[in-house]
């Protein structure tokens, strides 16, 4: 038993929202093809730290286990990514797990991603189809446009782009790349286009695109390979034009 391979984990923990963080190490038995989630499940099953003391098991969020829900984002060896699609064998040990500290940390690796859902409300991240009368079917969307929109539709609000962005932090009002890319997504839809200017008001607002510093970390860390920086540059174009014309029209 003692000759068995072990995986060493170092987890940044926090007991409550207002308590201090601390590091705790764990050594868990190795199994082939483990991912970070299955390593954390092992701790859950047997919550004993590297010193052999029984501790509270590590809290984290997960759901789909196939990189489509966005719940298990965390900093793994420093970089933000999805725990489910990160294979233990490909990582340097001890594996360092930290919560995405750009968001309020609730407990251990669990963060509150509410600000991204609030942001989707601000940009009106929906297609308004309800009215007092039937408005008929919408215009057709070409397959090229469908393909482009599809990439943006895969956004799972995981928060990686916000966590890696140097301009999303407590000192900056920036809404972040996720919400801005969704603005482009809803604005390119032929019915969504009808409320385009309302979304652009947010884009040129205080929390909007002017906070982007072009570090382009967002597109590098996006687990879904969403062309975030392309959306940002396109929005720059739209926002500049909209801001100028709406000012000249006053």
């Amino acid at each position, binding site marked *: 038993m003692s000759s068995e391979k072990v995986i060493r984990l170092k987890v940044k923990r926090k007991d409550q929202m207002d308590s201090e963080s601390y590091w705790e190490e764990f050594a868990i038995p190795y199994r082939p093809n483990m991912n970070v989630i299955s390593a954390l499940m092992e701790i859950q099953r047997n919550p004993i730290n590297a010193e052999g003391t029984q501790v509270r098991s590590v809290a984290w969020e997960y759901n789909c286990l196939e990189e489509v829900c966005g719940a298990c984002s965390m900093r793994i060896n*420093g*970089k933000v990514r999805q725990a489910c699609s990160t294979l233990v064998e490909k990582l340097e040990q001890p594996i360092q797990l930290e919560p995405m500290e750009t968001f309020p940390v609730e407990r251990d690796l669990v963060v509150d991603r509410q600000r991204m859902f609030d942001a989707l*409300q601000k940009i*009106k991240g*929906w297609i*308004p189809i*309800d*009215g007092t009368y039937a408005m008929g079917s919408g215009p057709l969307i070409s397959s090229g446009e469908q393909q482009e929109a599809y990439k943006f539709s895969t956004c799972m609000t995981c928060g990686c782009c916000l966590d*890696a962005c*140097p*301009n999303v*932090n407590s*000192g*900056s*009002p920036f809404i972040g790349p996720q919400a801005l890319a969704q603005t482009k997504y809803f604005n390119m839809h032929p019915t969504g286009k*009808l*409320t385009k*200017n*309302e979304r*652009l*008001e947010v884009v*040129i*607002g*205080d929390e*909007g*695109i*002017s*906070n982007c*510093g*072009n*570090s*382009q*970390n967002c*597109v*590098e*860390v996006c687990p879904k390979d969403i*062309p975030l*920086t*392309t959306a*940002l*540059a*396109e*929005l*720059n*174009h*739209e*926002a*500049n034009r909209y*801001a100028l014309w*709406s000012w000249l029209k006053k």
Partner: protein
Amino acid sequence: MQSNSLTADPQPVSNNIRKRFVLSRLHSLAGIVPLGIFMVEHLLTNSTALFGSEKYNEQIHLIQSIPFLPLLEIFLVAIPLIFHAGYGIYLSMISKSNIQTYKYERNRLFFFQRVTGITTLVFIIYHVWSFRLAPVFYGTEINFDLVNSHLENVFIFSFYVIGVVGAVFHFTNGIRTGLITWGVTKGPASQRIAQKICLLFFAVFGVLGVASLFAFI
């Protein structure tokens, strides 16, 4: 509750909320149009030192004979510069660099843009004092010999090399990000080409600037 209905015109947000957007665009514009153009002109003027002290003194004389020169200097250089520097310092203060973790090329450029912004400001304050303000106060003539007397000091010379290279980097990298800010280069392919062209500009103006410095000693 958010309204879910179609409205013809959005309720325009008060101008105050757009302030950050307007300031950021003016910041980009100020960096490229008056300041960038001025820097290219300045580097070209100084490069006449490569053709000897007489050519340089002649060129300085020509510039000093431009009518309303102090007004042009104040409105086309000093004011845009103070605004660009002030807002730039604010921007670098609210960003939180993470190049230790994310060693991507553009993230490094993002970091160096902020570092060179600060070095350029320090350099410019010293440079403007030595060659523009001090001669006015003390009545010394600006010419090749004055520059030569400063640059003969090896510390000042090294400071100038760092200052010039930093300023050229800040300008050429600023063109790259400016093209994104103004929505010209949208996709990754065009942004890559723009980056290469800006790197070429950096090399050309960097070499020109440093060669001009050597011409003064």
